[in-house]
């Protein structure tokens, strides 16, 4: 196993940082700050995750509403989305996640640019907002004639007892041609965005997937789960899929439409990108429809190659396998050329990554390809399995916050359950080393001795920079300028700083070039003025400074 020697031992960092907190909080943080270790059986130390952020701590986290509306449903262009609540939540989630979408015709439905809200006022908070929500749906239907409407509950809605599901049902009776469904994604649910992902998965599974039984044409049909088309990542993945000859039935939810979700159960394979936000759906679709799933990583040229090879291997078709190999070979020629040019300039530089629930893992692959070492990483809202791998699932203790999020009981669909591969074949394949329903987690792929920090907060980020002087920090917008003020380049890995794509082969090239720019551009060198470098004064002309 690869080892990395930190300039200050990770254990020392953990002790000293935890000492700044109250004893109770310090004790908890010690369980969330882990010095990585990987043994022969791929086991890693246990990390505490998916637990509350202490009040008053400057966290990177957001809320359940952000996870549900912002992350999972946001990228879908033809589900009309109404935020039920005061104006803020709808306003802040309006286009800010950069999910790109490409309607097939100029007339095709595309509500991405529209932010809709019931803008609840004091009267409605006092007397209930259900009537206004119904009226808002009436107006939305009259104006836009959508085929599906999603309603998203915000904090006060849950407290005043508005039932978004009841309103959705009543509205559906009124408008039988429109699929209307509500999400109880009040911001206080759970401990982070993660609760919202789960809530979104559940509703999409019960109310959307399975509504249309018409499969897409194609020989090798799969869904990609947990790819949100930030900066055009999904476009690049679509391009590679088309070159390889696999049919991307639907992407949950980058560049997606309702019909693709509704018929996603007709595909033969689910591959999962962002394990945290969407593993629920993969699991449930396997149980109900018999669609197997496995984890892929389409960030990083090597990881992309490996993932597409695995997809081809799943379908066991010689022509597909050869074609995929050929595509990878052609694409890698360009990738390799850029990598060879850039790697010498980035080799040995260090990075720290604190992002989401999969990016902090995936982007380590990309950085490694140009020689950048990740010395500390962590997720904002992941669970233990995202760190340690799914093998720890049975040992995860469900606390009160998670128990409040509904866990659906799923059984095989009477008519539509169709195992895409038999249990026997699955075992044979597994014995040959093919993995299903897998996620190895981030920690087994990080060097021994590096730091893994769950829900890293501002204080710890500052200390990391102070202790380890990383050459690059990757996190989100709230952290961006805190880091850059210190003269350290910062790359946003939520919004990509309005660039991209960074997935797939072309994305890898974009990312190499971007990291090269950040690490080697002139701009950051001006943080220190010349007179700060050599403050001693030697008079040449003897002017007298005037007051």
């Amino acid at each position, binding site marked *: 196993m690869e080892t990395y020697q930190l300039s200050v031992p990770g254990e020392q960092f953990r002790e000293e940082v935890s000492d700044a907190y109250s004893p109770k909080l310090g004790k908890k943080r010690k369980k969330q700050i882990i010095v990585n270790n990987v043994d022969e059986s791929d086991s890693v130390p246990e990390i505490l995750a998916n637990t509350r952020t202490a009040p008053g701590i400057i966290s990177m986290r957001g809320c359940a509403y952000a996870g549900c509306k912002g992350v999972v449903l946001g990228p879908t262009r033809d589900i009309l989305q109404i935020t039920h609540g005061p104006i803020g939540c709808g306003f802040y989630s*309006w286009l800010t996640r950069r999910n790109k979408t490409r309607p097939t015709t100029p007339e095709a439905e595309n509500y991405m640019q529209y932010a809709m809200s019931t803008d609840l006022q004091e009267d409605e908070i006092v007397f209930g907002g259900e009537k206004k929500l119904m009226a808002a749906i009436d107006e939305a239907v009259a104006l836009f004639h959508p085929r599906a409407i999603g309603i998203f509950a915000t904090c006060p809605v849950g407290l005043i007892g508005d039932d978004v599901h009841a309103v959705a049902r009543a509205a559906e009776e009124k408008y039988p041609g429109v699929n209307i469904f509500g999400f109880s994604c009040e911001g206080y649910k759970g401990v982070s965005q993660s609760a919202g992902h789960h809530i979104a998965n559940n509703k999409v599974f019960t109310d959307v997937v399975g509504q249309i039984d018409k499969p897409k044409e194609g020989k090798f049909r799969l869904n990609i789960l947990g790819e949100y088309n930030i900066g055009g990542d999904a476009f690049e993945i679509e391009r590679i899929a088309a070159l390889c000859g696999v049919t991307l039935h639907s992407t949950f939810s980058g560049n997606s439409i309702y019909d693709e979700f509704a018929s996603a159960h007709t595909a033969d394979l689910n591959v999962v990108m962002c394990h945290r936000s969407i593993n629920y759906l993969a699991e449930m679709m396997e149980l109900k429809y018999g669609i197997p799933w496995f984890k892929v990583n389409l960030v990083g040229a090597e990881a992309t190659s490996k993932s597409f090879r695995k997809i081809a291997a799943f379908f066991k078709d010689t022509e597909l396998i050869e074609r995929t190999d050929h595509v990878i070979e052609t694409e890698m020629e360009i990738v390799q050329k850029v990598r060879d040019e850039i790697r010498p300039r980035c080799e040995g530089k260090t990075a720290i990554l604190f992002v989401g629930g999969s990016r902090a893992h995936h982007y380590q692959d990309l950085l490694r390809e140009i020689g950048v070492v990740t010395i500390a990483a962590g997720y904002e809202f992941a669970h233990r399995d995202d760190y340690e791998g799914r093998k720890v699932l049975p040992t995860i203790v469900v606390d009160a916050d998670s128990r409040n999020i509904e866990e659906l009981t799923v059984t095989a669909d009477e008519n539509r359950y169709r195992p895409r591969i038999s249990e026997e074949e699955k075992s044979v394949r597994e014995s040959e080393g093919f993995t299903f329903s897998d996620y190895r987690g981030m920690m087994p792929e990080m060097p021994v001795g590096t730091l893994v920090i769950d829900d890293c907060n501002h204080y710890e980020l500052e200390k990391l920079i102070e202790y380890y002087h990383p050459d690059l920090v990757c996190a989100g917008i709230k952290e961006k300028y805190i880091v850059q003020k210190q003269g350290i380049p910062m790359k946003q890995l939520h919004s990509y700083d309005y660039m991209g794509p960074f997935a797939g082969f072309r994305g890898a090239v974009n990312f190499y070039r971007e990291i090269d720019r950040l690490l080697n551009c002139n701009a950051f060198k001006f943080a220190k003025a010349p007179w700060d470098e050599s403050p001693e004064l030697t008079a040449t002309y003897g002017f007298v400074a005037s007051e």
Partner: protein
Amino acid sequence: MLLRHTPSGLSERKALTINPAKTCQPIGAMYAALGLHNCMPHSHGSQGCCAYHRSSLTRHYNDPIMATTSSFSEGSSVFGGQANLLEAFTNIFTLYNPDIIAVNTTCLSEVIGDDLVQIIKKAYEEKKIPDGKIVIHANTPSFTGSHITGYANMATAMVKYFAQNTGKRNGKITLIPSFIEPSDMSEIKHIASEMGIKYIMFPDTSDVVNSPMDGHFRMYPKGGCPKESVTASGDSNAVIALGRLGAMPAARLLDTQCKVPVHVLDLPIGITATDNFVDTLRKIAGVAVPESLRKERGQLVDILCDMNQYTYGKKVSLLGDPDILLSMVQFCKDAGMEVLHVLTGTPPGKVKLEDRVRELYGNKVIVKTGLQCDMFMFHQLVQENRPDLIMGNTYCKYICRDMDIPLLRIGYPIYDRIGQSYVPITGYRGGIHLLLKILSIFMDRQDRDAEEENVELIM
């Protein structure tokens, strides 16, 4: 077309807001709190509120926006947020050591009825607030008003908690600006300084959210009004509220609480409003307008006259926040432009934006304020009567692109251009910047759209 589903003609709506022209109170309160020196804004609600507000402000200012949250769980939402807030105080003072914590409520904590006065009292009693440290609060329920109301409420809280009348006037003038850029606040201070006036200004976000890059991160940058100055505002000889909606409530309270005579003016954007500001300062302080300001004014007037042909008669539609809108409308009038539409989602309150706009432009201009007055409506209005220029925030870019109308970015938020936090639009110098921007837009359009034989070399 990005907004392809917006039908032409005004759609009657009573419940659905589409593409809002406002946001919620707490973000305004957070921004105002950043205008106190060594102050940590604190959002008493779910952590999503704080995350959204910090993200939005960061995107607008491209600077660190530091704030904390009570991180409500489902339990605190049921049983009340007192325990969370008390724990937050301990953590904030231990880790981040501010002098002041400025708490704003959210829809969540307002609905469950958390009593901030009582919780803060308890925090003092239980020594959760170290000696010499202070916690202030503003009630900012998201289901009334807008971000401008939230800003006004936090500015008012500063007066309530700090301002004291010792019975002896200090010869200073207190300036309270509405929700404007740090550069605009600096420019207002510049005018007062040039006139030799001793002033106190709060909230003052200059040198907080437009701080320089020098290799160091400071959780509390050097700017922001010191709390001692806010205290001393109770002894000031006069207070000037710059903006009726964002600044007047705080100024009025200073009057009632400390008997400081109050003057309510429009934000000094454009010539007329800046003239009013300078003239008021002159009269209150009994000073002459210095040569330096006469020169700044003269230069602005110079450009306005020299280039009047490029602005005269141009049609403009404006979207934004009432205080800025009002002064901008006046400036449009000064430059001979015709205002077609004025729209804000912020409820008008007692301030009759509409009346003021009508004083200038009569009954032809369309003014929309309050509920369901949003960008969807604005889009429909400009489709019916096309302007030459739209003034508004970043979100107007979709309308502008679809309709090929140029956009002058003013107000909040501006996510897609930089400069507003460095270059002011207030004062005479700000007026020059503003006018130059407007001229560039119209003149670039003329260059682009003119028939070949009509392309002018000299303009």
